[in-house]
């Protein structure tokens, strides 16, 4: 190691230490409460079983859809229809399932309802992540046919090359489900079906617990342990050029693909629409939007969430842009931020409470901003990582005599504009309807819209909650405008 790189390394280590503080605080507080965590073993088991089942379901469906898309030559618009489901915030999907089931006259037990909502929300993600690996499969299929390997035997040829992708995508899905708070909060809490994130939240507000924060931290630690195996499996998603599809598409496959996308969207959207638009008792058209928007909690929540989402997306993108010319630091920081993106948000939320409760930051929007920055930075870095040709262009500019600084300013950064925009369109809606961190960290006067919707739902204001949910779903579709971006 050369001497000149040492200070940079030291600075990076120090930064890593500071960034890891919330997790360390959580760990130290949790150690005294391991017995309580042990008592919650049934909830831990519940979390594990639900996340695993959900992962298998979404993975299977994603695979089937990916296959159908390849065979059927599914175009962008049909694909967009499927992806819509992913852009509706998870807790809004949860509400949609709640109301759709009521509309259909079905009564799903909490655990099944959670699985259904997860499947509706995360299957499009599974599809998108699996698609590159599937594309590369087509040539092998053709080779298999040439060699006379047909029917069920093809699985033995096709499965092994898929396995790494399945493991990586499965790990990512498992982490997302394990840490998901919104869906079990909407569908599980009223039925008292707990998973670790919702139990940690319930413990924080328990009137009988002698040390709510300590018990919640222990649950956080348990959650971290369950996340660990998948974290080790994790690899950055493959985004490669797709292999070509079949020359003659099978229309039936396309039909099936479209039917699933439509059904999923209906299941999530139909109940919400009915609840928001019609009086549930008289059946007359009576939109609840104006009532919902007249609620002070909703207004404040919208304002706070808008500002927080703006600030978080712009600040993280700016940081990523500024570090883009330094690939070493960029990659190292991204690795750190990845941890906060992949680990369940409950850990970060609890860690920040433990760390900052004695400071004036606590119970203000600033602690929320800090949490958002840590949570969403990874996405900004991922968005700007793309665009490898930028380096070459900057190098060309250098050849033409520009200083490194000016080369980046005049050539590099402008070339990254589409990636930055794409990153913004991904981060902004996610931050706008964030609920895991804000449910733990909000304070009176510093509510977010997610907290407001959850409050309305728990306060029996179903129609107002549905109306705001629909608005959030609409904002959530923003990234569809930037499909060419980070996917």
């Amino acid at each position, binding site marked *: 190691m050369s001497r000149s790189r040492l200070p940079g390394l030291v600075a990076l280590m120090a930064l890593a230490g500071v960034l890891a503080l919330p997790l360390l605080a959580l760990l130290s507080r949790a150690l005294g409460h391991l017995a309580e965590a042990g008592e919650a073993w049934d909830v831990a088991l519940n979390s594990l079983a639900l996340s695993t089942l959900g992962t298998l379901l979404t993975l299977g469906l994603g695979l089937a859809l990916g296959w159908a898309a390849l065979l059927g030559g599914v175009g962008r618009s049909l694909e967009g229809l499927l992806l819509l489901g992913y852009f509706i915030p998870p807790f809004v999907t949860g509400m949609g399932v709640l109301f759709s089931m009521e509309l259909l006259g079905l009564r799903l037990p909490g655990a099944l309802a959670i699985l259904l909502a997860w499947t509706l929300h995360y299957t499009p993600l599974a599809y998108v992540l699996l698609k590159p690996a599937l594309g590369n499969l087509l040539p092998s299929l053709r080779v298999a046919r040439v060699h006379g390997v047909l029917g069920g035997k093809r699985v033995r040829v096709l499965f092994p090359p898929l396995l790494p992708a399945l493991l990586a995508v499965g790990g990512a899905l498992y982490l997302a489900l394990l840490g998901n708070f919104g869906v079990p909060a909407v569908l599980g809490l009223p039925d*008292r079906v707990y998973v670790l994130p919702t139990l940690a939240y319930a413990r924080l507000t328990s009137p009988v617990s002698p040390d709510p924060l300590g018990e919640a931290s222990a649950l956080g630690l348990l959650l971290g342990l369950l996340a660990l195996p998948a974290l080790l499996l994790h690899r950055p998603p493959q985004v490669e050029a797709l292999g070509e599809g079949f020359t003659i598409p099978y229309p039936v496959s396309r039909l099936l693909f479209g039917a699933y996308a439509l059904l999923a969207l209906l299941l999530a959207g139909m109940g919400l629409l009915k609840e928001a638009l019609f009086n549930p008792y008289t059946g007359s058209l009576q939109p609840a939007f104006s009532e919902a928007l007249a*609620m*002070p909690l909703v207004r404040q929540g919208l304002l706070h969430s808008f500002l927080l989402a703006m*600030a978080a997306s712009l600040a993280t993108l700016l940081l990523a842009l500024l570090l883009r010319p330094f690939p070493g630091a960029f990659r190292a920081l991204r690795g750190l931020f990845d941890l906060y993106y992949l680990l369940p948000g409950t850990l970060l939320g609890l860690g920040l409470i433990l760390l900052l409760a004695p400071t004036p930051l606590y119970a*203000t*929007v600033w602690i929320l901003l800090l949490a958002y920055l840590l949570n969403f930075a990874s996405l900004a870095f991922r968005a700007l990582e793309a665009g490898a040709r930028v380096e070459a262009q900057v190098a060309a500019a250098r050849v033409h005599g520009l200083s490194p600084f000016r080369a980046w300013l005049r050539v590099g950064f402008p070339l990254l504009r589409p990636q930055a925009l794409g990153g913004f369109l991904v981060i902004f809606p996610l931050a706008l309807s964030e609920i895991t961190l804000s449910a733990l960290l909000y304070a009176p006067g510093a509510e977010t819209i997610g907290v407001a919707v959850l*409050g309305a739902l728990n306060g029996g*204001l179903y129609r107002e909650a549905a109306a705001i949910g629909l608005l959030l779903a609409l904002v959530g579709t923003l990234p569809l405008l930037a499909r060419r971006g980070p996917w």
Partner: protein
Amino acid sequence: MKGIKSLAAWFLLAFGFGLAQGSLTLYTSEVLGDVNALVEAFRKENPGVEVKVFRSGTGEVVAKLRAELEAGNPQPDLIWFANPEYFRELSGKGLLRRVPPTVPGYPVQYAYEGGRYYEVRLLYNVIAVNTQRLREERPRLWRDLARPAYRGLLAMPDPNFSGAALITLGTLTGRLGFGYFEALRANGLAIEQSNPVLQQKLARGEYALALTTDFGVRQEAAKGAPLATLYPQDGAILVPTPIGVTSWSRNPTLAERFLRFLLSPTAQALFAERGYYPVMPGAPRPKGAPERVVALPGTPADEGTLRRFNELFGLRR
């Protein structure tokens, strides 16, 4: 550049409110729609005053306040929830500010401990019925709910979360013994989280009968829900939901003004409109409510009873 400037202005606007003059923080279990209406009406009479509200079930509100008191950083200027015991505890520690009950006509029995905390409107726990779902004869007494005809049709809110439900548990255990709830459990009593959620599900026919608050049922009925309140002949349970000004309030005059506003004709009429019984004698009565109510004074369940209840129904917390 202009965009950045206006963004900065937005930030100041949004985050500066905490520092603005005339800010109140209220911790309450009052139903969200009702507290919004009251706060709006108060702000109309007191322009420029910001009222921050933390609203949740009584259990969560008390937990939050306890945690803040322990940390030495309690936030609310006003507290308002269905746990009279906790009010007594706070008052005993000198943590509630006395507000002299000088509003003319106010029934003094509702100003507890000489004005440390107040009742500003009355609500009762009654039997609510979905008139479309219930085909059988309606119950008349609390005891009737244990009849086999109502098997699987019953629900009540979680007493760990809802202060009113804790009072149902305490009062009926006192009157009928804990065996009453064992009989209801055997009759398929379901536990929902909160009164509002339970009332939504009752209105949509998931249940036919519920042990729940009267005003919320009237609110849903006014929106067209097929709901009715039954005031049991052996007494509806009067749920104390006092409000008080905290001793640590940084803005006690404003907090006091809010309390007195709740006793004003405007607020009292608002209570009646939303299905509560106003506490002031001259105020209008809630629509569709009986003129006179046979009331049982409500007492919250103690720790032991709550623990037995949690074990009986397999509730966590």
